[in-house]
């Protein structure tokens, strides 16, 4: 009675464990299934307006064919889905259609899953392919936060000077002491004024810190950002750059793009499917800013204009940040212009200014950061128009004199997507052709197939019956690894990732080999198969854990420092270690028990 209860209590956890192992493999296998159905790339066309009516399917096919695209399939509806042959032409076709259907429809490149409906319902999708397998464009941009900080200090200095004049503060001078700081200098009688100015500035700009010292009879207060202030400013600049870039890419109609921060001040942008980097580069790398200024004959900032130089009040009436939306259009003479809609705050600023300045000129300044031949970044400003304020202006007005339609469109897009305070430079640019991607996939998988079959064949030959266990465990390992990679978000399969997969196959058998060698040793010493199995698995465990943990350490180091190709490799390696430990120890342990379960009965 007692013994039976004992037997039941040991049998239950074992049975539960077996169930659990089977369940894990089944679930991961299910996750791996969508990889059998590769996504198709399609164009999605969504009508924006009812009039003029968007072109029907026939017209779309005609339009695409006239530009040299081959339409494989068109599915009309809302949205209309177009499949091209080859599918890699979708990005180029998107540009053509977006141009042709401007204002009537929005055209996007979308990935469509082809897996059965029930699989999609479960939220399962295939592994995302990296650019080197898919083709596309990659940019790595450096965000120059230092330059942005300098610019911020310049603005603070301007603000300080304006405050000094507005509040009629006497005996105080504002000095730019260094690129990243400024100083308020007060004569003995101006100390009160200095404190007033200082507290006004501290109120307005957070994270600013002050240190005061006496120099002869002069009191000097230096304002600068301390470490935490700098960090906060940098973080804010990076976040702004990321959101701005994301919305710019969205404006370009690329939905599958990856935009992420890389390291302290780099941003990595992957545009799968895109083949012409020029258009994307013009939009992504642009740091264009618009600002509106009153003219100032004396002591103003001298800026280059169409004819000669113009003196401007350095303080802007309002900037691009106050712009809600922008649209390219044409005036009655057909000249390109950009219509602006200001935010209510910007509208207020404009209203206040124009009310007091009717009949006076206002200048529109266009500035951007450009790199000169030495690679040094500097700001280049140009006044694109000087117009007389005819009436009191509110939230809505337009900028004319833009030169070309292209320029108007780009400017409208940039203003819509938000401006960048920090200059961006492209430090890496890569364009991978779709044929290289296909080549990489086929060669990667050929290597995987060869490596796998050779390893399986060898294990079968060498270990015979135990080899069968190793082979099943190895296939289960591959299944689990692929399932895990599809399941985890943010895992991208790249060519080095496939290499990691192949390497994992070679190394995963190690776990089995360690155990099997132990079992052989035990058998040589005369243990029964069952005892040898048990001792083999038990004793090998510490070696296996040690060996895999150290590989895991290097994989984690790789993951934390590497980007792109290295990261892809590190992730597969790390996941591979986990699955191979699971499959090598737990799965093959269960299998061996099951394989040799009849032995003790016949032996007894």
């Amino acid at each position, binding site marked *: 009675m007692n013994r039976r209860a004992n037997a039941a209590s040991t049998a239950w956890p074992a049975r539960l464990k077996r169930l659990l192992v089977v369940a894990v493999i089944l679930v991961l296998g299910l996750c791996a299934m969508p990889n059998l159905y590769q996504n198709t790339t399609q164009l999605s066309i969504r009508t924006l307006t009812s009039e003029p009516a968007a072109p029907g399917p026939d017209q779309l096919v005609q339009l695409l064919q006239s530009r040299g695209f081959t339409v494989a399939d068109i599915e009309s509806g809302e949205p209309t889905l177009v499949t091209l042959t080859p599918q890699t032409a979708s990005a180029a076709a998107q540009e053509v259609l977006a141009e042709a259907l401007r204002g009537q429809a929005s055209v996007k490149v979308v990935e469509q899953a082809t897996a059965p409906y029930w699989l999609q319902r479960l939220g399962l999708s295939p592994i995302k392919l990296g650019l*080197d397998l898919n083709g596309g464009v*990659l940019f*790595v941009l*450096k965000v120059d936060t230092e330059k942005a900080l300098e610019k911020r200090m310049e603005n603070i200095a301007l603000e300080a000077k304006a405050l000094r004049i507005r509040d009629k503060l006497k005996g105080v001078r504002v000095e730019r002491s260094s690129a990243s700081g400024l100083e308020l200098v007060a004569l003995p009688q101006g100390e009160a004024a200095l404190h007033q100015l200082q507290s006004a500035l501290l109120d307005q700009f957070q994270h600013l810190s002050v240190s005061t010292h006496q120099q002869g009879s002069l009191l000097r207060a230096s304002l600068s950002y301390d470490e935490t202030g700098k960090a906060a400013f940098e973080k804010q600049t990076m976040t702004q750059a990321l959101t701005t870039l994301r919305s710019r890419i969205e404006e370009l109609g690329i939905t599958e793009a990856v935009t992420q921060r890389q390291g302290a001040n*780099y941003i990595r942008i992957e545009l799968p499917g895109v083949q012409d980097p020029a258009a994307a580069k013009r939009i992504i790398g642009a740091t264009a800013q618009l600002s509106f200024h009153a003219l100032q004959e004396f002591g103003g900032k001298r800026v280059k204009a169409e004819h000669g130089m113009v003196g401007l009040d350095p303080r802007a009436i309002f900037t691009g940040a106050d712009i809600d939306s922008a649209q390219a259009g044409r005036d009655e003479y057909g000249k390109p212009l950009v219509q602006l809609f200001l935010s209510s705050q910007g509208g207020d600023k404009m209203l206040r200014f124009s009310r007091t300045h009717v009949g006076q000129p206002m200048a529109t300044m266009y500035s951007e950061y450009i790199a000169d031949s030495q690679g040094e970044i500097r700001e280049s400003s140009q006044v694109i128009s000087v117009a007389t304020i005819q009436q009191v202006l509110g939230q809505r007005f337009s900028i004319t004199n833009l030169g070309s339609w292209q320029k108007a469109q780009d400017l409208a897009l940039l203003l819509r997507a938000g401006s960048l305070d920090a200059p961006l*430079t492209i*430090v*890496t*640019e*890569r*364009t*991978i*052709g779709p*044929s*290289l991607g296909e*080549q*990489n996939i086929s*060669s*990667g998988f*050929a*290597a*995987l197939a*060869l*490596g796998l079959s*050779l390893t399986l064949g*060898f*294990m079968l030959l*060498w270990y015979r019956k135990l080899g069968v266990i190793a082979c099943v465990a190895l296939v289960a390992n591959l299944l689990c690894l692929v399932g895990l990679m599809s399941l985890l978000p943010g895992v991208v399969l790249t*060519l*080095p990732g496939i*290499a990691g997969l*192949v*390497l994992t196959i*070679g*190394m995963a*058998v*190690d776990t089995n*080999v360690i155990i099997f*060698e132990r079992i*052989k040793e035990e058998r040589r010493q005369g243990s029964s198969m069952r005892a040898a199995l048990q001792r083999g698995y038990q004793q090998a465990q510490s*070696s296996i854990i*040690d*060996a*895999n*943990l*150290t*590989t*895991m*350490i*290097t994989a984690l*180091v*790789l993951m934390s*420092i*590497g980007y*792109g*190709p*290295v990261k892809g*490799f*590190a992730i597969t*390696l790390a996941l591979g270690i986990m699955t191979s430990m699971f499959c090598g120890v737990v799965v093959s342990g269960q299998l061996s028990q099951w394989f040799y379960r009849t032995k003790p009965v016949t032996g007894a």
Partner: protein
Amino acid sequence: MRDLWQTLRTSGLALSLIAMILSCVLISQRGLELGQDFTGGYVTEFQLAQDISGDELQHQLARHVSGEFRLSAQGALHWQVFQPPHNDSPTPLNWHTQLPDNLGVEILDSRFVGAQIGAELIEQGGLALLVSVLAVGLYLIVRFEWRLAVSASLALLHDVLITLVFFAATGMEFDLTVLAALLAIIGYSLNDSIVIGDKVRELVRARPDSTVSNTINVALGSTLGRTAITSLTTLTTIAALWWLGGASLQGFASALFIGVAVGTWSSVFVSATLPQWLGLSHRNYQRTLSEQEKQQLAEP
């Protein structure tokens, strides 16, 4: 017989040490051919429709590519052009549009890397190598014993150096994937050292009467099968990668192949042999055993 093993191991260790010193000299003499990932620059990979000799293509390109460039073959009809980062041409990547049509140029991959990001990568890569060796060494000290940890770390250094010297000697490009391969080699080589070290520890505890040299011989003998089989399967899969993986995995696969082969050697001749010279004795492992026993005894 035992003595034969002993001399074999000692001479293997000596050979490894000599090879390490020679590698250091050779690497410092010749330097590594750093790839575009580290130096920055422009790389264009393209395919031609026409079979053309390297010299002829070089001649053709010289007319259209401004500044200096380096042409290398990547496979059948598959070529690569490298242009250094300080290329004064305003559009360094546009030369292919000017090539004659009959060549049938198809651009497969074109990439630009700024010189600055490359310098940062060298720093990061070196740091990664250092951090992983240190982290792993620390783990070993905690898990085993300092003699084994030192020996295994030296074996790692040995593997990395010999792989590097292969790149220095052949002039193959050292790029980011090769760096990843080096880190994978560290993981693999350690794997080997640990399995053998584990066995040594087990036997040293089990046979306190035997000499350490003998015990190590026995441990090596009993793990030899495993070492050979695992190396064989790993090398087989890497060879498959080398053969079929395409041009972009060549450097990675060759680094791994050499690293794994050398790592197998060093796990036997460096990390298993050296502890003996550093004075490993039964007492070093006996103490850990008694502590474990104490723990076991303390448990009810």
